[in-house]
Each structure stands twice: as C-alpha cells, then as structure tokens.
C-alpha cells in the first residue's frame, strides 16, 4: 500500500520529523490533514520524569502499523494517506516518541483515522516504555495485554468500569 508509510526510527539514527509526515500525507485531492505527535513529558503520575526508553519488537511492530493502516482505510473508505512512525531508544523530555498523520479529502475522516491509528498503536503494537525518574529509579509502564485469553478475562473483569489505564500512563 503506497499510501501508507510506516517506520521505526532508532533515536541513534535520527529523529521523528513532523514535516516528513505532512509531506507524505499531502495530496492535491486532500483538504484535511490531522497529525498527532506524542512527546515525552516531564511528569507522570506525580513523578518527575527525566527520560523514557522505548523498546520495540520491530518486525511485528511494523506489521501491526500496516494492519492498522489497512483497517483505517477499510473503515473510512475515503482516499487516504497515512503515516505512522515510532521512536526506539533513549528519549529525553520533549523528544517525539510517535507521529501519526492522516490526509483525506475532508477533515472528519482525517481526525477519525488519526485517532483510530494512535489508539491502535498504543494498545496493539509491541512497544514498551521504561520511564526514568529524577531519583534514579526507573519503571516499565503498565500496559495492555496482547494475550487474547488474558485480555478477554481482563475485559470481563472491567465490564462496566472505565478502561482505566489509558488516561494514567498515556501521552
């Protein structure tokens, strides 16, 4: 699918570049572009963060990004260009961890495709983050289980309650 660009960028090799994302999803057919940028922020759950290490299982992460792109295209039907890139390695405050951008004829599909993609990246892609704190401590974030059986059990337990984690550890 040439209308989809997916990347994992090792922070040692380069940075994520919003201009590249915008250039990729621009098209004379498209009036609307929505771009989400996730950055490392200096606080989480009340602790002062000094940086985040991102670990990825790259081949499956890239496959997952592609599957997400195909899903967005199927769901919204419209012509669409989609860009999904995630950083790998040791990031500092303000560094860009993820960029998702969608270009479509109208704005509604662009917003929806961009939101769908970032939610899926966060909940489905094999990516892990370890937060480093100012006191020298560090911790792997709690996350979403990719184990189907476990996920079903957890979903059943949570039924009726809000899906709590994504507003706690999330960017």
């Amino acid at each position, binding site marked *: 699918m040439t209308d989809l660009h997916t990347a994992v960028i090792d922070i040692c090799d380069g940075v994520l570049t919003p201009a590249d994302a915008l250039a990729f999803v621009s098209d004379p057919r498209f009036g609307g572009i929505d771009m989400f940028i*996730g950055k490392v922020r200096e606080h989480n759950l009340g602790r002062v963060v000094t940086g985040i290490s*991102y*670990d*990825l*299982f790259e*081949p*499956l*992460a890239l*496959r997952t990004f592609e599957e997400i792109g195909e899903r967005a295209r199927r769901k919204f039907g419209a012509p669409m260009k989609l860009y999904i890139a*995630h950083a790998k390695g040791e990031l500092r405050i303000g560094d860009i*961890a*993820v960029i998702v951008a969608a270009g479509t004829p109208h704005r509604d599909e662009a917003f929806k495709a961009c939101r769908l993609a*970032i939610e899926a*990246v*966060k*909940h*489905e*892609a*094999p*990516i*892990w*983050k*370890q937060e480093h704190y100012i006191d020298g401590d560090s911790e*792997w*974030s*709690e*996350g*979403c*289980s*990719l*184990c*189907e*059986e*476990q996920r079903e059990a957890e979903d059943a337990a949570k039924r009726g309650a809000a899906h709590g984690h994504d507003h706690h*550890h*999330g*960017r």
Partner: protein
Amino acid sequence: MKVHISLFGALRDADPRGFIELEAPEPCTIGELRELLRDHLREHAPNISAGLIQRSAFASENEILHNHRALPENGQLAVLPPVSGG
C-alpha cells in the same frame, strides 16, 4: 525441539542476553510453552512475577500466537509483556 524466545520490556530482566532457550516437546502448543517458560523463570529469574507471564503474549515476527496455536517450525518466538507504546 529447541525454542528461542526473545525478551522485551520488563521481561528483559529475565535474562541479560535478551533471550531464553528452552527445550519443548513435539508437538507443543503456545499454552504449553507458557507453562514451561513460567517454570523456567520461577527457577532462574524469581524476580519475574508469574502474573506477568500470564499477561504476556507469544508472537512470531508476523503475528501474535494464541494459546491453542502450535509452535512455529523454526522455533523462533518472542514473548511480549503488556504493551505501552506511544
């Protein structure tokens, strides 16, 4: 067969090499391998909680492999703790 299991995220602490090798019977399902990995870690990496293994998924480079699936023929697997990307 010999199974090579790559480690990610919090499970990297289970072995500084970044992988674990186990001997699995043939045939063997992912569910059975999960039990073998849990037993192995209980002995060799007691700091890893059994609950984390329970919440982790197994995968090839192409897809998540659920409990009923057979091991891939090449014996190459990854074990994926709960994800937290973005």
